[in-house]
């Protein structure tokens, strides 16, 4: 249900504008309207400071938000009391940001150093004994090379090239590393080093460089230092983490206070830009729930004095498209408001489809899953998510929707006699009350199409109801619903499901209604009527997904006897059921949503509503509600 809104006008002496706006912000219920300028009412006078202040606040807020995002989860100390201190906050936020950036850079450098050392350690572990002996080789030079994985010919080609250039005066050792690369150690006489370096340069083979941080010298000298460094890096990272926690403990509270104040100040500046003034008075307009108007008026006058007046504008003075939208539904339907978040809000004054989604979405889901076993597993998952989630969060709503889906799946499972496919029939003698889905495909298709006809007709009727203030549009939509029902009756009469005598009067009725429909809805009305028939056929997907689900479950059960070994067969069967369950969660959800968004909402839903974003305090969630 869309809550009834009222548009109010707040007026008072011009010198009380700032105080009144502050009181309105404290109350946090008024969604501000665009500035009421016209005639004697003009926007408030702006001085250069009014242009500078929002820019400065946004700059400080950028640093504050960055700091809070990177401070980590350390708890904050109690917020110090005191008034605003924008200059101090600007300096403090910038200082904290520089400090945190330095900590992040140092952490990144240490992580990169550790990754590099680990790579060298593989090489060192492969050639430890040789590298340790390297220092004792007189008049020799050692070269350390890593060959890329996948090139199996590289090592023989290197050996061949060295033989050609150095006439066999070399030693070559190779080890395959865990990463797939090949570590190669080449030892040559020092006077042949130049030839070898030229060969490497021509073949574009790169020696593993000694990291600059370890000075000159050979890899054999640097690697022990690097291994020792591996022990120091975790301590340095821990020290940086402690430094970050110290910064968080000292700065978080003040940063959060700064964020709240600065966001409130930006909202106040925006509110000021939405007000109008005359020579002696101010005017502020906005919306709030109609039931809250008396309380709002009383509390505002209590805070600002009797000079401030609140008056409610007549309904005829504003258009529905301007009013913000708040959805309010009974507890049973409220979780399904989440489904509407994927769509733009409905226009104020139109229909809130939440109750219909709450009725039909679980029903479609249940018919597609249609299994007692899968329904019970889903119910268990829904309970787990419900227990782990907090009230009012998205996950809580998802768990409640999943619970409804599980309930309908179990009910449909009882109707179709399915428990993990045909296991219920084979083990427990479970019998269907309606029909068995894998055998009765046409009856199931008939059920799905019938459900689609009801759903689409309901959508058209809701379209007629929601456009009741526009008689011609309402006539067109109502007539579309009646003609669609007439087409269905005529088809059923032709198929002799209904008495054949109904055919002639139905066809006459359709012929009479046809020109009236074109008059009401235009020449495209027949095309839309045909598309409505196509929309009904789209509900055949309920049958398709339901049959696919039960067939997969039956095949999973047949795996047990088909594998030779019972243990292997049971394992495969469980895996198949798991895959089928995952598909049963995903596909029916997507297609049930699609049936609502496209086939159902397309008949009556008027998108384009404005989200209710009251002017309030940041600490009360005002800024975050608006985003």
């Amino acid at each position, binding site marked *: 249900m869309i809550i009834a809104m009222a548009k109010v006008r707040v007026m008072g002496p011009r010198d009380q504008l700032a105080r009144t706006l502050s009181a309105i912000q404290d109350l946090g219920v008024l969604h501000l309207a665009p500035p009421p300028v016209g005639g004697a009412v003009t926007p408030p006078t702006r001085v250069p400071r009014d242009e500078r202040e929002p820019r400065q606040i946004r700059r400080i807020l950028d640093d504050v938000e960055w700091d809070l995002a990177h401070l980590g989860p350390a708890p904050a100390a109690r917020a110090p009391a005191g008034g605003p201190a924008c200059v101090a906050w600007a300096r403090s936020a910038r200082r904290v940001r520089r400090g945190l950036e330095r900590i992040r850079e140092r952490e990144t450098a240490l992580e990169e150093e550790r990754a590099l050392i680990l790579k060298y350690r593989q090489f060192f572990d492969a050639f430890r004994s040789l590298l340790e002996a390297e220092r004792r080789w007189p008049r020799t030079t050692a070269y350390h090379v890593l060959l890329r994985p996948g090139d199996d010919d590289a090592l023989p080609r290197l050996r061949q090239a060295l033989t050609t250039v150095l006439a066999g005066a070399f030693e070559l050792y190779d080890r395959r590393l865990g990463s797939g690369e090949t570590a190669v150690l080449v030892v040559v006489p020092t006077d042949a080093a130049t030839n070898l370096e030229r060969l490497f340069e021509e073949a574009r083979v790169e020696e593993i460089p000694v990291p600059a941080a370890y000075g000159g010298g050979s890899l054999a000298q640097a690697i022990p230092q690097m291994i020792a460094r591996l022990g120091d890096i975790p301590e340095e990272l821990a020290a940086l983490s402690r430094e970050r926690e110290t910064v968080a403990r000292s700065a978080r509270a003040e940063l959060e206070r700064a964020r709240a104040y600065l966001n409130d100040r930006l909202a106040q500046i925006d509110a000021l830009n939405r007000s109008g003034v005359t020579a002696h008075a101010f005017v502020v307009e906005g919306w709030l729930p109609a039931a809250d108007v008396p309380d709002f008026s009383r509390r505002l006058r209590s805070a600002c004095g009797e000079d401030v007046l609140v008056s409610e504008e007549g309904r005829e003075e504003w258009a529905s498209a301007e009013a913000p939208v708040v959805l309010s539904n009974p507890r049973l339907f409220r979780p399904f408001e989440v489904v509407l978040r994927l769509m733009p809000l409905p226009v104020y004054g139109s229909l809130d489809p939440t109750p219909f989604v709450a009725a039909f979405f679980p029903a479609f889901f249940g018919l597609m899953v249609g299994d007692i076993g899968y329904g019970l597993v889903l119910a268990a998952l829904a309970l787990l998510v419900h227990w782990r989630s907090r009230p009012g969060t998205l996950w809580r709503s998802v768990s409640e929707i999943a619970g409804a889906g599980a309930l309908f799946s179990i009910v449909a499972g009882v109707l179709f006699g399915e428990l993990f496919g045909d296991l219920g029939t084979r083990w427990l003698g479970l019998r269907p009350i309606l029909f068995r889905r*894998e055998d009765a*495909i046409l009856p199931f298709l008939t059920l799905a199409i019938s459900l689609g006809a009801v759903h689409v007709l309901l959508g058209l009727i809701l379209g007629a109801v929601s456009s009741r203030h526009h008689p011609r549009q309402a006539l067109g939509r109502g007539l579309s619903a009646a003609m669609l029902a007439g087409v269905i009756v005529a088809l059923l009469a032709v198929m002799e499901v209904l008495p054949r005598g109904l055919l002639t009067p139905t066809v006459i009725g359709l012929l009479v209604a046809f020109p009236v429909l074109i008059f009401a809805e235009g020449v495209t009305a027949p095309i839309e009527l045909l598309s409505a028939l196509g929309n009904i*056929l789209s509900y055949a*997907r309920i049958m398709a997904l339901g049959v696919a689900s039960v067939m997969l479950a039956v095949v999973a059960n047949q795996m047990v006897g088909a594998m030779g070994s019972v243990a292997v067969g049971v394992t495969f069967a469980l895996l198949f059921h798991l895959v089928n369950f995952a598909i049963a969660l995903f596909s029916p959800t*997507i297609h049930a949503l*699609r049936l609502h968004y496209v086939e159902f909402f397309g008949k009556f839903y008027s998108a384009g509503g404005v989200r209710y974003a009251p002017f309030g305090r940041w600490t009360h969630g005002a800024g975050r509600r608006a985003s």
Partner: protein
Amino acid sequence: MNLVWIVLGAALAVAVPALATAWAQSRIGAAIAASMAEKPELSTTAVLMIAIPETMVILGFVVALVILLRAGAAG
């Protein structure tokens, strides 16, 4: 021989829409991936967009079932 044509018809009724669905979803998936790189909040809408072409293969499946049932070849 008739049975061969019937089963072939049913197979084509699923296979051709499946190919069309796969082609459509590949184009939509690529476009959605590019959009989500700039606007990650589109993720939920993206899943729905990718699922919309599945109508083709589902209705193809229905047609195949009707062909087989009519021919008495199913079950």
